[in-house]
């Protein structure tokens, strides 16, 4: 009994001597608002709230920051779920990141929402053709 008590005590002491608190100081990434607010300013003349987000997404796309680009577009789609151009841009992000399956689905969705926006429809069709080429 004594031995196990001492053992327990020893174990706890050793545990207690372990250096804690555990270090959690990961380097904090510099905040990414710079690019975002720049894009917002450029799009300042646009009235639609999603215009700024679309621009922001394009800068992310240009920088190959795909998740960030997709996040901006999804934020815009929440505000304007029927805007074919937002879905089209999201399709492009998927295409650029190599996710052809999602690129194709999003391009089809964009095309189905295009309505009288012929430019958006033909852009979606063109992207679908590009996807088909890449899939071959």
């Amino acid at each position, binding site marked *: 009994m004594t031995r196990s008590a001492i053992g327990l005590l020893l174990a706890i*002491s050793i545990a207690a001597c372990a250096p804690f608190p555990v270090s959690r100081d990961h380097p*904090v990434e510099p905040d990414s608002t710079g690019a975002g607010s720049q894009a917002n300013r450029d799009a300042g003349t646009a009235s639609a709230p999603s215009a700024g987000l679309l621009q922001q997404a394009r800068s992310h796309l240009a920088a190959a920051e795909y998740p960030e680009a997709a*996040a901006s577009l999804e934020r815009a789609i929440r505000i304007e779920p029927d805007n074919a151009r937002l879905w089209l841009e*999201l399709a492009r992000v998927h295409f650029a990141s190599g996710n052809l399956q999602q690129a194709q689905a999003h391009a089809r969705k964009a095309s189905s929402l295009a309505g009288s926006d012929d430019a958006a429809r033909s852009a979606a069709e063109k992207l679908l053709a590009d996807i088909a080429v890449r899939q071959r």
Partner: protein
Amino acid sequence: MLILEMLFLRAPKRFVAAVVGALLLGYVLYLSIYVIIAFEGRRWDIPAHVYAAPLELYAGMSLTSDEFVSSLRQTGYDRVPEVSDAGEYTVDGDEVTLRTRAFTYWDALEPSRQITVSVDGDRVLSVRDTAGEMLPLARLEPVRLGSLFASHHEDRILIGPDEIPPLLVDALKALEDRRYDHHHGLDLRGILRAAFVNVRHGEIRQGGSTLTQQLVKSYFLDNRRTFRRKIREAIMAVALELRYDKDELLHAYINEIYLGQQGARAIHGFGLASEFYFSRRLSQLELHEIALLVSLVNGPSYYDPRRHPERARDRRDRVLEVLADQAVVGPEKAASAAEAALGISSGSRMMSRYQPAYMDLVRQQLANDYDKEDLETAGLRIFTSLDPQVQARAERELSGGLARLAAPDPEPGAALEGAVVVTRYQTGEVIAMVGGRDVEFDGFNRALNARRPAGSLIKPVVYLAALQTGEYNLASRIEDAPIEIELENGDTWSPKNFSETSHGEVPILRALAESYNQATVRLGMEIGVDAVARLLQDLGLPEAPPPHPSLLLGAVETTAFEVAQVYGSLANGGFRVPLRAVRSVIDAEGEPLGRYPLELEPVADPVAVQQVNAALVQVFEHGTARTARGTLPRGLVAAGKTGTSSDFRDSWFAGFTGDYLAVVWVGRDDNAPVGLTGATGALPIWASLVGGFDHSASYMPAIADDLELAWLDYDTGLATHRGCRDAVLVPVPEGEKPPQEAGCSRGLRVLSERVRGWLEGTSD
């Protein structure tokens, strides 16, 4: 034991004393290490915080100033004459000016900024910064819903040392431990004084425990009043005092102490208590509010200001007296604070209101990607799509609707229950979930876990499977006549219509809108039950149900959540968008960890889906949901379907508008008949809920290239003209427009049929 005895028998007394001393020392050492580990654990283990969706503000959005102010209050904003700090707002006519709090989102850190929002009636006119520049978009930091807590369902918001109001510190010392700054964990004088006070007043007015002892007690959740426990507590308190300084201990106390209960969720620490009781940040609290929180230390349940407001008020005022006696505040200040109302927030204005049903969904979604350990200790921040306003509305509509439906005094255990799921189907985001009429009950989540027969909710899938073959369209006439089906076990199944009558040849449009059983079974047998079962899985059921003929009338058990997934695929025109509650996760330092992206999967032919949806629109115009027309705003186009299981055990409605999809289930936990159809039980709740959403857009199906719009006579499916009675505009495949009907049926016949239909009531 033998060894011990031998040791003690043979050893000299001095040696025995040494061993006993060593054992005692060991015990003290053991307790010390034990409590220090507990202390460090609490200091560093932070459960994941879960946030609702932030409110996005932009010109043109629909929002009244009342709704906006309600959102601000729920987010813990204080109304002030002039905005000078983050978390404050002013209202000037139709303009609201506020300063946001800095907040780290998954995608960006948004600094605090001052904005002015102009509202005209139910629309936002403009969002401007202090310089008057228009802002295209601004977001209000999200409401914190609670934690994914682990042990004992403890929830807390950790408050940093610099966020603690000095008044709180002084009040705690004055009330609980006057010699805190001088003792070493134990206060003998305090114990004697407390005993004296208690004897003099004949009641427990003061406890003798120091703050440090209370802290220790809280760590080990042991309320047994034994002498041995007191000794342990005392040793541990002294050990903490030797290891940590006074400020560290007080800081830990303020984050640790138990201050209330909401269902199964235990409210710990003054940071969370401040939000829980007042919907305000701790740093914003005034004297009378701090006094109330301090008064809860001794009995959060006994002095619960929501359940016992008078008792709580007496206690608070006595605390204020003590604060004045101890010269913590001046007597005039204490007296005027005692004049103030309790100021407890309630209902949808409550900040940090825990949502057990929605939290289940959050846990379920995260379980695949995150360790339980990380969720409970690593201080993660989880961003969800919960819309606090819609959630509050869904809770209200369900409990109100059930109260209207239920018998006044049901037998015990026979209460009518319900569940609601609301999604933004285009993105697959779940924005509200109610798991039962008692929303704070953290138990059986019916929306996620109650599997009930779907009834006629299945029918659109039967028709979709038929239309996908390309051999049918909405105008195709099918036979609604008695049918006998040989089952595998040798029985014969002969389904009846709800009205007990058969309708002969009817167009698919009407068969679906009016939910005819015989027509549906005939069509389903024609195309094969297998195809329907497979399509159900493609659209969103976790697995294909067994392909028995009774599946065609909904003999498949589904949850409201699964129905929302299936109907989401319809609403999205044949794309399945997996339902999600969590948008993204960041770690304690604000670094992005994971994101749950929007995903689409084509699962059904858009041409067929758009036709089915057009029939689901007619459910509201001519079919089983026409009784709800009066509840929905004029001109709002919605699509949906009623569902009723056999013997009226389950009442369902699933439907969507241009932006929302909602599923409502009503039934009983013991599966007893409730005597309600989908139209009389779930539909009124659905219509009142969806009709109340701010200017929900109409459902406007995109018309695929292969479809054209045609005016059909609702009764016959023949082509007719706009303006003719019962003419409905629906999509049909190009080139398959049905033959023109002779004349325009405006006659008495149709009118009298309509009247008869109304008199007979809603069929299912």
